């Protein structure tokens, strides 16, 4: 599979998504380059999580176009899309209560070469090593978030879809996550981040997509962040 020359990782065009009768996304277009970190910001219910889930095909029905590494995925099932090198960390973290910490970590199949080894992940997340025999949901919220990150770093996925990493976590954990994301960016990962905590997002992202009522309302590069402050506040309703 030849990767496109222009280094484009994701390109969505006129993406519509439906859950049953409800039409959630109304023609979303966005593109993310290799190694870029972008955020989707917007109010609760604006459709940010649905955009992430649509990129993976995890919605009832979707139309339009989503190209990942140049491969059109609109008609592919989620497991085939994941195999293109996509790692997903869902909002509710998705730690399995009937699996031990180690089983949770080992669950996602390796989708590409070059993932981190288990030893390396245990080095980065010593708490996970300490509790590796415990059941997954026995971990604290912060540890569960670390586990949800660690397990997609093992698979060799180069495109990470991260949903509300910092929600409900203590400031010290949020700081640790910030350091982790910064490291991942240096390592060349491409990241799409849905984030409620705008300060968290602002310090990390190259560009911001403002999502409003199922559409992309605005694209703001980090250089323009300061001058767009009022506009963003209006969209976020703060």
């Amino acid at each position, binding site marked *: 599979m030849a990767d496109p020359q222009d280094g484009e990782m994701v390109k969505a065009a006129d993406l519509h998504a439906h859950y049953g009768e409800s039409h959630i996304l109304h023609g979303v277009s966005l593109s993310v380059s290799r190694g870029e970190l972008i955020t989707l910001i917007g109010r609760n219910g604006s459709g940010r999580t649905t955009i992430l889930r649509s990129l993976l095909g995890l919605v009832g029905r979707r139309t339009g176009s989503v190209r990942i590494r140049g491969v059109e995925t609109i008609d592919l099932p989620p497991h085939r899309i*994941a195999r293109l090198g996509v790692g997903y960390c869902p909002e509710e973290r998705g730690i399995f209560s009937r699996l031990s910490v180690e089983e949770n970590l080992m669950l996602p199949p390796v989708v590409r070469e070059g993932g981190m080894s288990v030893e390396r992940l245990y080095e980065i997340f010593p708490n996970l090593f300490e509790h590796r025999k415990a059941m997954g949901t026995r971990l604290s919220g912060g540890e569960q978030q670390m586990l949800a990150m660690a397990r997609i770093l093992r698979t060799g996925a180069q495109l990470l879809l991260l949903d509300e990493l910092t929600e409900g976590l203590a400031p010290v954990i949020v700081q640790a996550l910030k350091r982790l994301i910064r490291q991942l960016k240096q390592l060349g990962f491409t990241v799409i981040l849905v984030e409620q905590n705008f300060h968290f997002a602002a310090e990390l992202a190259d560009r911001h997509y403002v999502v409003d009522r199922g559409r992309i309302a605005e694209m703001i590069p980090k250089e323009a962040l300061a001058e767009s402050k009022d506009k963003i506040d209006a969209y976020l309703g703060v």
Partner: protein
Amino acid sequence: MNFFTRMVLAQMMLGLNNGAFYAILSLGLAVIFGQLNIINFAHGAFYMLGAFVALLGYTSLSVLPGLAGFHMNYWEALLIAPLVVGLLGMLIERTMIRHLYKLGNLYGLLLTFGIALIIQGLFTNYFNVSGTSYNAMPDILRGTVNLGFMRFPTYRLWSIIISLGVCLGTWLIVERTKLGSYLRAGTENADLVQAFGVNVPLMISLTYGFGVGLAAFAGVVAAPIYSVSPIMGEEMIITVFAVVVIGGMGSIMGAIITGLCLGMLEGLTKVIYPPAANTVIFFMMIVVLLVKPTGLFGKDQYGE
């Protein structure tokens, strides 16, 4: 050992034998429910089909061209019947059940109930409802063994051992292997497992095939004990559903333990108060539903 103790032990052994069938059937139901979230009403029909594959393989395959004089023996039947029935199950899952996952589990229940009625109706049309005996029991399993307190039919002892072995093997696969971790995770959040790159639709087909294959296996093991009849599954499955309600749908080990214990409870009741033997399981079901509606080993939807 006095007469009463001997009688209790004898009935407990027979009860354990029935319980082993309950265990293997309710185990299959639990595995299927875990992945497909449907209650497989066709389970009894697949149990019956398993017995018929063994019976017809022994008596009737030799009329086919190229198979003259071929009689599928018991050991072959133990392997072939679950395979044949499992493949049929996968076909049914792919062509019919699959379309109902988005509709809520009542539809799956109705569909599989319909499938059970069709399969059973077809067989009732061609075969004797009062049963045909299966005569391919291997010589090594004939006769009795001395258990100290009684002489017990060798075949029944074998059927207890092999059924428990299969139950334990299934439990080990689900709880201790990588494949099993996909199954357990799929029970909790199949979407997420698929988003990680696991071919969940295929896993669901294989699970259904495996579950009904287990039922067919139980059918083959049961064939030499009970006569093979189109309604054998219907009779069995009513009790098995009561076992499942008592045990709760949540756990594999729960299905196994509940099946065995209720089989023995039935045996015990035969000694103490014989008229209640056929109803004691249903009485238990009522008590459990009143006291712990999710079943003895069941979990509520929040996994507590």
